[in-house]
């Protein structure tokens, strides 16, 4: 999975804007990804960047967050639900305090009855082999307990960086599903998308017959992994327990 193929510049620049407009020390932000972003994209952000093996960005980020709870760990992941599906589900269950930005390069050839105007080679091998139904990622995230879930196309620049900025200040497992593809395909997604805030995640699957539903779907509070850890252990051990400072 090459970074260029997916037109990731848009996502990264949205992240850049978000960092600019968010009251958060950049040096505390760590970016973990299984996408090999080129240095020219990352350097200007002024954050620490770690590239991991395919699909393992989330457990890597989990370790990083627990290793130093003061960090704000942001995961840019391409292999969210292929190799990484299990880590995704369990990090959500634990409500690990990390922000997942899913750089979603799935190809949908038919949306709201309209054909994708772009000719694609290798279409048969787009993310799962074309005949397989793809995951409804927001719904899956919801079912495993994410506290913040939104979806945008990479062309929803304002909304996207707004979402990221909000999620950066939120504690808990947050997911932003960003449709990111070559510009012509992205254009098609964008024109065939429709903003519906607070939509029930059951209905946001991307299907042939309806428009791509984007927006913020879930925003709730749950104690994070570290909160519950501190609570439970201080309850049992009393002052003998060394609390984890966040």
């Amino acid at each position, binding site marked *: 999975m090459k970074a260029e193929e997916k037109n990731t510049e848009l996502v990264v620049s949205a992240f850049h804007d978000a960092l600019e407009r968010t009251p958060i020390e950049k040096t505390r932000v760590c970016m973990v990804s299984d996408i090999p972003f080129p240095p020219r994209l990352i350097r200007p952000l002024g954050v620490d960047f770690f590239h991991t093996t395919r699909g393992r960005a989330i457990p890597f980020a989990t370790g990083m967050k627990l290793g130093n709870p003061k960090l704000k760990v942001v995961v840019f992941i391409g292999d969210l639900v*292929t190799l990484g599906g299990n880590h995704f589900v369990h990090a959500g269950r634990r409500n690990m305090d990390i922000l997942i930005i899913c750089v979603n390069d799935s190809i949908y050839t038919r949306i709201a009855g309209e054909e994708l105007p772009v000719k694609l080679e*290798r279409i*048969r091998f787009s993310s799962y*082999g074309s005949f397989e139904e793809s995951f409804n990622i927001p719904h899956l995230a919801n079912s495993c307990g994410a506290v913040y879930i939104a979806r945008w196309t990479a062309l929803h620049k304002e909304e996207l960086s707004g979402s990221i900025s909000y999620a950066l200040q939120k504690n808990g497992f947050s997911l932003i599903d960003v449709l990111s593809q070559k510009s012509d395909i992205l254009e098609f997604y964008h024109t065939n998308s429709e903003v519906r805030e607070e939509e029930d995640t059951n209905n946001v699957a991307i299907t042939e017959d309806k428009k791509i539903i984007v927006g913020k779907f879930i925003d709730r509070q749950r104690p994070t992994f570290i909160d519950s850890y501190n609570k439970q252990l201080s309850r049992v051990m009393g002052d003998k327990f060394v609390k984890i400072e966040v």
Partner: protein
Amino acid sequence: MKENQKGVLEGKYKLSGNQACAEGAISAGCRFLGYHPITPSFEIVERYAQRCGDVDGVLIQMEDEISVLAAVLGASWTGRKAITVTSGPGLSLMLEHVGLGVMLETPCVIVDVQRGGPSEGLPNSPGSGDVMQARWGSHGDYELIALSPNSPQDMFDLTIEAFNFSEKYRTPVLIMADEAVGHMTDEVVISPPELVERKYYRGPKEKYLPYKWDKDLIPPMVDIGQGYKFHVTGLTHDERGYPVMDEYCQEWNVHRLIDKIRLYSDEIVRIEEEETEDADVVVVSYGISSQDAQNAVKRAREDGIKAGSLRLVTIWPFPEKQVTELARKVKTLIVAEMNYGQIFYEVERCSRGSANTVLISRQPSQVHHHEDILEAIKKV
């Protein structure tokens, strides 16, 4: 065997190594391919996908390489010949199931189109960094077979060979290709292959014991759904396939798994010797490096140096005898491989001090240059 020759090609075709591998699998009667996309092995899948309609093959993209090999093992037990294709990182994920394949004695073929490593390394450059991993990668002690092609035609032939070995010895067989061979395009002759059929159990159903081995140490097999109601397990098992947790059963089980390959190494091993009879210095190589080695040797001969070349077609089991004998005849063995010394150690071991061994660890950039080998030859 179920495979029919419907849709199988014949004649001369211009194919890349990867495509040739897919055609080889199809000719060998392989009708199941499980994969997870990874450069630079992907053209194999594409080719197979375009062809599986013609040959009623099954193709599935699993969620990760771990599940890929699990699925391949399962498919193999249904009587289909099964294959998976991957590259270094994928092979690392498959390792646990390589062990399971060995333990269940499941025939299957794993193609590793090697790339630069370690970790993500260089996805589009050749490497030979996984050859020791192929032998030692999974936990516990086991033996398996690994072949190393050096041209598209080889890719085709060895794929068929691999399936034959896997059926004959009931073991996973690895094809350790590399990016250069996989993407090299050349004319490939596709001819009707000689196939080894799976050794099926013929006796009465109720008497069937999954791991009751014949004199040749290989137990006959059955397919799922034939009413044998057999049980197999990854745990150490007796001939009924039931787990037994003691050193006697472990010895009974694992020692045979090892010996069923070691004792047949003479039948399995294949090497290509060139001008080694009178040679003072011989270049030992495999895969893409062997082409350059052979060129270098020709050049050296032109310059009047008594050089020869030994190409390992079979890497595992390692051609110990052949190398030991050669070492006695020559002064120096030069090992040319695209890593910092892996097969080199095996050659060093087998030369038993009677010839000194030199390693040229080569870089992707040097793949198609044989000067460095020539220099080394001249030096010694």
